[in-house]
């Protein structure tokens, strides 16, 4: 209802999430990403006895967050979820590499990949429980 007033304001540039395609981008990326993670011997064993359906939902939430989309991921949640896993730098890097490979496969622009990696790095200490 306030569109009339909004038009007078200068247009804001699209967010990272809008730029790369929003929810459709998440949907396009989630299967590719999850498949790469499950095929990566460095981290695949963490997913052995996990319910794939609920993990798939979590992967979507993770991608939405690193794509700069609406999310409620908190550092506390990240810590709690990964605390018992004794994760190392190698595990984090494996996930990051799979993420980058997914984005390249989807022809995401390098500058956007850089922004996404920056967001991913921002949760590193929480994930590694540092």
């Amino acid at each position: 209802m306030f569109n009339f007033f909004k038009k007078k304001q200068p247009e804001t540039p699209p967010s990272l999430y809008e730029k790369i395609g929003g929810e459709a981008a998440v949907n396009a990326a989630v299967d590719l990403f999850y498949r790469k993670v499950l095929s990566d011997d460095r981290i695949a064993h963490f997913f052995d006895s996990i319910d794939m359906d609920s993990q798939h939902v979590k992967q979507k939430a993770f991608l939405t967050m690193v794509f700069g989309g609406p999310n409620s991921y908190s550092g506390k949640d990240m810590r709690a979820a990964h605390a018992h896993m004794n994760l190392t730098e190698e595990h984090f890097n494996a996930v990051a590499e799979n993420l980058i490979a997914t984005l390249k496969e989807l022809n995401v622009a390098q500058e956007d990949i850089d922004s996404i990696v920056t967001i991913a790095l921002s949760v590193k200490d929480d994930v590694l429980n540092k």
Partner: protein
Amino acid sequence: MRPTEFISNLFTTLLQKQPVVHFRDAAGERTQVPIIKGRSLLDSLLDAGVSVPHSCRSGLCHSCALYCSNGALPSASQKGIKDAEKAQGKFLSCLCMPDTSLSVHLSTPLPSTRTATLDSVEHLASGVSILKMRVTDFAFTAGQFCNLTNAYGVTRSYSIASRPGDEHLEFHVRHVEQGHFSQWVRSQLKAGDALSIQGPMGNCCYTFSAHKDRPLLLAGVGTGLAPLYSIVCDALYSGHLAPITLVLGAKKTSQLYYTQALVALTKKFSQFNVHFCVQDDDESGTENLVEADLYQWVKTSYPELAQYTVFLCGAQSFTRKMQRQCFLAGASMNDIFHDSFIPATP
């Protein structure tokens, strides 16, 4: 809610003719909350102090899903919900901007229970009993299951093996040593007996409109055949437009059942194929049989599943392993439907 609060809420509602949401939580506690135009149902509920699990508030995480039992749901609120769940009224409260009053619940409304009369029971040598019963006005989707309760109050879940619209509802009961339900079926149940039946339930479903163009791969072990048989028959007789393959695994050939009926179906419908994968062929003469490991055979025969819709039914150890394998072979997570059979605790 206190009675005074209820009355004042009711007053406000009547005065403004404002639509309301009737909310029922998991414990059955009811609350009535006014709907504010332009505000999501989730926000309206949270504003009123109703506790609803939620996270992303943008239709992604599905944690704020509710079930609607009455009222017109805006179609936008069912974005990304599977067809069978849509039919149960599942929707995302964060995407729901209702114009009219709704009744919503935190958990799936349980389907009604009715009495069915058993028409026949047949005990097969493979260790399975085939139950056929008659229930009037019973609508279901191929792949769904029901809870059956016997005269002693023992309840077990069984998938429907017949096709929607068939004269009978058919169930396959595997004989379990000291199984309270299956031993009762074997030793006492006879035609004319009454059973209590609650259903249908489950989301591992085939719907013609959603799947008609997709090649189907169905795989199962044990009585996982029951829901797959319903899906195969429904797809074939509805005029499914793409190939359909059914793969059944067993340790021994003698544990398989319905083999002849399935082979006959392949002769009637050229788009349908069936393969029986056994480790030990202890009965010669079964057509379409291979002595092979089920997982390995599927992997080699169907290395590329990107275009497929996959249905997996049977023991959880099987559905989990096969779900992962099919996903890695290219099937999309949203195109893999599974129903895991979990044994009852005695």
